[in-house]
């Protein structure tokens, strides 16, 4: 009998074993009502997504519709500030304003291959919801997005976008009324209508095969980075790659083709909220314990009794009490360096980038930028930061921060 905690993929961090485990984390902890759907996905996702015709359509859409490749931009003034070489992988320049669309383009094609007629999704900041609504409009397929009531309030422009794109936005009113509850609601909606519906999960979380599937769709980020960096510097390998982590999809994409390049330091940045130990934080690797949430075993912020706690972050996209199993494994194995940035540090980093480079980043991405200040770089280092999204959606928060300052 196979021990489920033994990786079958010895020597690579990239792939989980056949049961969806990255080291001690992963799996598919789902009620029987979802078994058929998840099993259908598990047995077919690789065969479908690596089919030549699928790859062609996926790559064509990424190129012509999403606007890829996104630039790898040497941020000179930011580099000067940190006395090193900092490149920004400009996922903010994707259609819909964030990396989320890489995954939704892939999953909508997959859903159509599986013969599904309806899409459901969850969203925190709204970026994944918008990206899902977009691809559903593109393919003329019904779309329902679950979003925490609190997030609906704080991310109003994205709610309007989803509606304009024809999606139905359903408020999640249970629990903390944020991303975790939107995810619960979406999973339940899937249980209620399993045959015709595909659930597009927006991060590297959920039951196997979602973490692996989403990481593969997002891996276009590091795939491009490698050849772009080669063009610019002569080598494909930077010294550091950095990305913010809520569930961790942009980080998984940014890390993917560097996971087994042990010379490249992988830096994941979580949201510390008001401070890691303030009781108002979303720094899962620091505060979490192994547990099961949304269908996989990972690190989860929870009480001693195993009740999931409400996280806090100024950025709705990082406000999640778990982290994808790949990241839990990177953390536990020491392959990844996990840092955290507070709300204030991230706001400061957002204003800093706006002034130094003329780029307003999403609050999520600002966490990765804030962590630059916690690092010690050599002048010769080459650092790639995933700028996962743009800050238009966060203007209200930025305006509030400016009012306080003025």
């Amino acid at each position: 009998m196979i021990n489920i905690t033994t990786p079958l993929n010895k020597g690579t961090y990239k792939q989980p074993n056949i049961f969806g485990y990255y080291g001690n984390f992963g799996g598919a902890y789902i009620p029987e009502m979802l078994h058929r759907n998840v099993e259908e996905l598990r047995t077919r996702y690789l065969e479908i997504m690596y089919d030549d015709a699928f790859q062609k359509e996926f790559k064509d859409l990424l190129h012509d519709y999403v606007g890829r490749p996104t630039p790898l931009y040497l941020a000179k003034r930011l580099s000067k500030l940190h006395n090193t070489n900092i490149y920004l992988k400009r996922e903010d320049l994707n259609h819909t304003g964030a990396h989320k669309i890489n995954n939704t383009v892939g999953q909508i094609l997959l859903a159509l291959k599986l013969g599904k007629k309806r899409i459901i999704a969850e969203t925190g900041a709204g970026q994944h919801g918008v990206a899902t609504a977009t691809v559903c409009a593109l393919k003329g397929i019904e779309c329902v997005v679950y979003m925490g009531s609190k997030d609906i309030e704080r991310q109003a422009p994205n709610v309007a976008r989803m509606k304009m794109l024809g999606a139905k936005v359903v408020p999640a009113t249970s629990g903390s009324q944020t991303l975790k509850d939107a995810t619960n609601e979406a999973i339940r909606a899937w249980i209620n209508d399993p045959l015709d519906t595909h659930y597009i999960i927006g991060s590297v979380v959920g039951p196997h095969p979602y973490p692996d599937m989403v990481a593969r769709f997002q891996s276009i980020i590091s795939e491009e980075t490698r050849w772009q960096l080669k063009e610019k510097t002569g080598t494909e390998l930077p010294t550091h790659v950095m990305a913010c982590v809520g569930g961790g999809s942009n980080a998984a994409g940014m890390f993917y083709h560097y996971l087994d390049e042990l010379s490249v330091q992988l830096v994941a940045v979580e949201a510390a909220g008001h401070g890691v130990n303030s009781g108002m934080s979303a720094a899962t690797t620091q505060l979490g314990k192994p547990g099961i949430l949304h269908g996989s075993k990972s690190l989860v912020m929870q009480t001693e009794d195993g009740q999931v706690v409400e996280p806090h972050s100024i950025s709705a996209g990082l406000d999640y009490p778990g982290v994808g199993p790949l990241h839990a494994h990177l953390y536990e194995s020491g392959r990844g360096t996990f840092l955290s940035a507070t709300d204030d540090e991230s706001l400061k980093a957002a204003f800093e980038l706006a002034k130094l480079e003329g780029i307003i980043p999403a609050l999520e991405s600002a966490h990765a930028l804030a962590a630059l200040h916690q690092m010690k770089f050599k002048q010769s280092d080459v650092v790639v930061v995933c700028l996962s999204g743009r800050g238009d959606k966060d203007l209200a928060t930025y305006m509030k921060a400016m009012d306080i300052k003025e």
Partner: protein
Amino acid sequence: MNRLEELFQRKKERVLNVYCTAGYPQLDSTIKVMKALQDNGADLIELGMPYSDPLADGPVIQASGSKALENGMSIDVLFQQLKDFRKEIYVPVILMGYMNPVLQFGFEKFCQYCADAPIDGLILPDLPEHEFETEYGEIIQRYGLDFIFLVTPETSEERIKKLDSLSRGFLYAVSSSSITGSDKDFSPVETYLERLQKMNLKNPILVGFGIKDKHTFGMACSHANGAIIGTAYIKALENTTDIERTTKIFLDSILK
């Protein structure tokens, strides 16, 4: 012979399993609710351990869980409440809950406490059969607990056989693809239940989800050994000041 085995040997038809949430409506009402259920005709009690993120439950049961958590319920508190419960409760009692709180309590310690109480069986809907076979089943069996798997209309025949072979006590037939408390039409379920009936499974079958009154209970019982009622009973308890009376009225409406 354990209590579940004894029950299904003695009673092969119209077995009524009622779900209640531990610590609901009040923290200390757990035993009172169970006693009232037993005294008014429930053959079996499914005691829910509240969880913040219950994937398979609908809004009514989730709300009862949230209330129970606010009341201060935890697995620790529950086992304290169950310390002497066998002095009053003789019907089989199974615990239903989600993996995460059980893991935090300690899986083996949990099974040991269940055996000590004694609890008769477990339903953990998010414990997959693969993890049961490789890691947890052996511990559950070591403590003499029955483990009940769910099957749905979407479960393949081959898989139903497998889950039946792994289950002990009974097999939980989810009536339709839904969360608890859904209002879906019951009639297509009959074909599925007939299919199950013809499979000659090792375990008795109880039908759950969507059973809310005499009519649906009767329909379920005509194709299975009995049925499980949850949401409808939790709704009945919602505003009650008299648990015993409310439970009597509720169970009479089903059984009489």
